[in-house]
Every structure is written in structure tokens, then in C-alpha cells.
């Protein structure tokens, strides 16, 4: 036993992990839930490694998409740490796999079953009351309003400090929450209209002025060429095919430099919330590849066809990053509640909201002001929606 304990302590292999998914252990489907992971090091050696959480959403008919979060952990001897991860629970995610690695060695692995709640929760902030709802103390309120998304309604019965009040206001303004604390804003976000918009954005459309006359000329010239071949004179057809092969090769090489990525970004701010804004980003690519968004982003999945919609959140020294692959022609849509940029986005041109934007965001449009922001180099379109 002593030898075994010594071996475990030398290899750093002994860690214990406990977890809880969702408020009061009730993960709500299609929103971001808090995932508390407590990692303990019961050995006399410090532990350095990585904790990895992986879940699979979807089904064979809908297609399956994996979500993976990985974060480094450093534990002092007999130390303990609790990580709060934002975790997107999507339909079909009936379990999570929690693994801890020390270098390349897996030192802990466990499957966690999830019992998903279809409806968002009712909760309260303050002392527990009579109703069977979830009560939070002000100290339980997270820094990221996304973690309050599982609640549809919160009854606030105690005064809140300014940072906590901002989190609740942001949840109410951007995530369809209801409380006596400020006004409601964005009731819901629909991914499909934005997906359609993205599909219509080609980074660089075909050069029709070259393509159409070229194809017509080629097809017309093939008539005499094939006739000549039938009469035993293959020269004309050979020249024709070689000429148009060369032209199409030039076209193909010339078009390689065309931009392969388009995106639409929408930033929603509210007069009630000064510290946060809701950000919505849609990306479509015409080339297969991988892309990275700084920060932690939740993905709005389409109704089906989830194969290839894998996502990885990695914790780096600069914070969370969201890493995802891009399949040509397949849009991916992400949202987050981000700390508000103090510089703001001035200089936009006021416009009336496009119909796809109105269909994407369910909010009081008659009170909203929309600006088109001059896009940065890789963006196709950028908008700022200001709620009063």
C-alpha cells in the first residue's frame, strides 16, 4: 500500500474530480449551462495537467457534433480548485466525458449522465421562498451573463451590488430573461435567417463577363471541331480543346487569390446595460479549413445535419478561444455576451433593419436603432443594433 501510494504520488496520477452540470443539477437544453468541476489533488506532489470535457450532441439521423473544452490545471499538494465552465447543452447530449491528463497520460476518466430539462428554469435571487424554484444568493451570480441563460425568470428580492445587477440586466436584455430588474430586450435569436443570408454572400462571385461568353464560344466552336474529327481532321478539335483548357487553367489559377471567407457580425447594445453587449457572428467559407474566435462562443446549430459541426473551447494564456472547422458552403453561427468595448463602434451609417436581421433577432424593432458598420477586411457585413 505504501509503495502504491508512493508510486501514485511520484507519477502525479492521483486526482479526484467532482462535477455538477446546470443550476441545481438541472441542465437546460439548447442554452449555455454552468459546469462546475472540482479537481482535488490528494497527493503530496504538486499536479500539473489538463482537464478535458467532451460531449456529443445530436443523433444518427440528425448528425452528431462533438463539443470539447480543455483547460490547464495546476494543483498544490493536497490542493483543490473549482472551474466554472460555460457549457452548451444541445439536444441529444445525454452524457459528458470528463478526463484529466498529466502530460500524455490519462489519470482520470469518467462518464457523466445528463438529465436534460426541456424548459428554462424559474429562479430567485435572495432567501429561499415558498415556491419550488431555484434560489441563488447574490454571491452565486456568475460574471458571465450567459450562465444565467438557463433561467427564463428570476425573482430578485434583495438589493444587488452594481456588477451583479449588470449581469442580471444583461441576461434580461440579451437572453430573453424576465425579472423586475430593468426592461426585456432580445427575446430570442433564430439562426436560420442569418444562415440564409450567409449562403447568399459569395466572397467573390464568378467572373460572369468571362465565363458566359467563354462557355458559349466553346460550345459553338465544338460543332465544327467534332465534325472535322468525324471527317478524319482532328486538328481543329485539338486546338480548340487545348485553347480552352489553357484559358480555364488561367481562370482557375487567377481565382485562387479570391477571398474564401465571408462573415456577418451583429453587435447588440442596450441602454440598460453598460458593461456587456450581445455579439452574433456568422461565418461561411468556400475553402475547407479551421478557424479560431477569441473568447468563449456558443453555437446556434441548424435543425439537422450536424455532422462536421464539431467545436473545441481551449483555455490559453490569453483566455478562452473557440476553435472550429469550416466546411465549404456551410455557415456556422456563434453568439456570446461580451464585455462592452469602451471605444464603442461609432461612425456607422444609420439604416432600416434588413428583413433577415429582423427575423434573426426577436426584439422591439420600433425602438431599436440600426447602424451598418464599415467592415474590417475579412468581414462582409457588420451591424450595430442599439436598444434604448
Amino acid at each position, binding site marked *: 500500500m505504501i509503495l502504491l501510494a508512493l508510486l501514485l504520488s511520484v507519477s502525479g496520477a492521483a486526482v479526484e474530480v467532482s462535477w455538477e452540470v446546470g443550476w441545481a443539477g438541472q441542465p437546460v437544453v439548447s442554452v449555455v449551462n454552468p459546469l462546475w468541476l472540482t479537481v482535488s489533488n490528494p497527493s503530496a506532489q504538486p499536479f500539473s495537467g489538463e482537464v478535458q470535457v467532451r460531449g456529443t450532441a445530436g443523433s444518427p439521423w440528425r448528425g452528431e457534433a462533438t463539443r470539447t473544452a480543455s483547460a490547464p490545471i495546476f494543483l498544490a499538494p493536497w490542493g483543490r480548485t473549482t472551474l466554472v465552465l460555460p457549457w452548451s447543452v444541445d439536444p441529444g447530449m445525454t452524457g459528458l466525458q470528463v478526463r484529466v491528463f498529466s502530460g500524455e497520460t490519462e489519470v482520470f476518466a469518467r462518464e457523466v449522465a445528463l438529465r436534460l430539462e426541456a424548459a428554462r428554469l424559474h429562479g430567485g435571487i435572495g432567501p429561499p421562498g415558498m415556491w419550488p424554484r431555484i434560489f441563488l444568493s447574490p454571491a452565486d451570480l456568475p460574471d458571465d451573463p450567459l450562465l444565467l441563460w438557463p433561467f427564463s425568470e428570476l425573482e430578485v428580492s434583495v438589493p444587488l451590488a452594481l456588477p451583479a445587477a449588470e449581469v442580471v440586466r444583461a441576461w434580461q436584455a440579451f437572453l430573453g430573461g424576465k425579472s423586475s430588474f430593468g426592461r426585456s430586450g432580445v427575446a430570442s435569436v433564430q439562426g436560420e435567417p442569418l444562415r440564409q443570408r450567409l449562403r447568399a454572400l459569395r466572397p467573390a462571385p464568378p467572373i460572369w463577363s468571362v*465565363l458566359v461568353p467563354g462557355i458559349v464560344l466553346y460550345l459553338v466552336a465544338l460543332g465544327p471541331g467534332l465534325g472535322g474529327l*468525324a471527317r478524319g481532321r482532328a486538328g481543329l478539335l485539338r486546338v480548340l*480543346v487545348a485553347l480552352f483548357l489553357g484559358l*480555364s487553367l488561367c481562370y482557375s489559377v487567377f481565382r485562387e487569390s479570391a477571398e474564401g471567407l465571408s462573415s456577418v457580425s451583429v453587435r447588440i447594445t442596450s441602454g440598460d446595460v453598460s458593461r456587456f453587449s450581445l455579439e452574433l457572428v456568422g461565418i461561411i467559407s*468556400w475553402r475547407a479549413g479551421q478557424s479560431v474566435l477569441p473568447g468563449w462562443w456558443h453555437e446556434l446549430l441548424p435543425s439537422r445535419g450536424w455532422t462536421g459541426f464539431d467545436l473545441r473551447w481551449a483555455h490559453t494564456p490569453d483566455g478562452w478561444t473557440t476553435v472550429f472547422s469550416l466546411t*465549404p458552403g456551410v455557415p456556422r453561427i456563434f453568439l456570446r455576451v461580451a464585455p462592452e468595448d469602451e471605444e464603442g463602434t461609432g461612425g456607422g451609417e444609420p439604416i432600416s433593419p434588413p428583413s433577415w436581421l429582423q427575423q434573426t433577432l426577436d426584439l422591439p424593432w420600433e425602438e431599436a436603432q440600426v447602424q451598418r458598420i464599415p467592415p474590417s477586411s475579412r468581414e462582409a457585413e457588420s451591424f450595430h443594433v442599439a436598444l434604448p
Partner: protein
Amino acid sequence: MTRPPLFPEALITPYHGFAILSGGALLVSLLWPDSQFGRSLFLQALVLLQGILSLQVGEAEHGFGPQPMGERLLRLLLWDLWALGLASPFLLVHRAETAASWPAVALSLGFLFVHGFVWSLVGYLLPRVVRSDGLRFFAKYGGLALAEFLPLGFGLPGSGLTVLLAFWEGHSGGWPGAGLYLGLGGLGTLWLLGKGRRGS
């Protein structure tokens, strides 16, 4: 024994039609509102059109009567190459618009060559088996439709539609189907050559 023409006049229209429909399919795929569907539309149309053309080429070749099998084989390969040559400019344009890699284009061209050859062999052999013109029509095009669409329903690898799309997108899933076509093409070649030796 009369020498068959280098390129029979009866094939002018099928070849020209193949080129026109391929060009049309390219334009339609570029204009299609759903870019993901448009991406695969041209390739799938090309596979089907090439299959139809190859069947007609094989049948026309059979109509020239007995010829040395080695020469016949070369003619089938040459006509297959002509069809591929006619469609290659469209493939290169499609590459530009879908950002496919050059290896993917090379693999796709290779597969189309084998695919066309196999179906021209089918077209060549069918008149020996099915004498009735009406029945042969159904066997020819029905067989092509079954071979291209039936595997899709069962997730089997034999359809040219899925093989070409997999190669174009750089997936390895096209290899089993390509292997099947290569095997069929190789067997057909051996059979033709063996028959030529026995005949001589």
C-alpha cells in the same frame, strides 16, 4: 473487314450534347442559391452525363462489327479521353469556384476516366447479351440509373456520384468505389484482350 471511321458521325451529336449539357450544368450549379447543393450538382450531373455518353460510345463501337480487340480497346480508351477532354475546361472552372485542391482535381479526372471506360465496356457488351433494341434501351439506362443511385440508398460505395464528390472534397471515402471501378475496368480489359487472342 472494313476499318471503322476514326470518329463516327453518329457520335457527333452525343458528344456535342454531352459538352452542352455539362456546360449548362456548370452554369446552373454556379447560379444555384444554395451553394452547398450547387457545389455537388455539377459533379453529379457530369458523372451521369458521362455514363450516358459512354454507353452510347460502347454501343456504337459494337456496331462496327468484328475488329482486333487490342485496337478496339484503344479506340474505347481514346473516345473516353476525348469526352474527358471536352469536359475538362468546365472542371477547371468548377475547381476555381469551389476551391478544390489540385490533387483532388487530378484524382477526380482519373476516376472519371475509369468510370467512362467501364460504362463504354458495358455499352459495348450489352448488344451481345440483349438483342432486342427496346429491352436494351431499358437495360442500358436502367442499369446506369440503378448502379449510380441504388448504392446511395444503402450507403454502399459503388456509386460514381459519391466517389467523385468524395475525391473532389478530399475525403478518403471515395477509394472503395474507385477500387470497384478500377477492378471492373481491369477485368473488362483482360476479357477483351483474352477474347482477342482466342479470336486470332
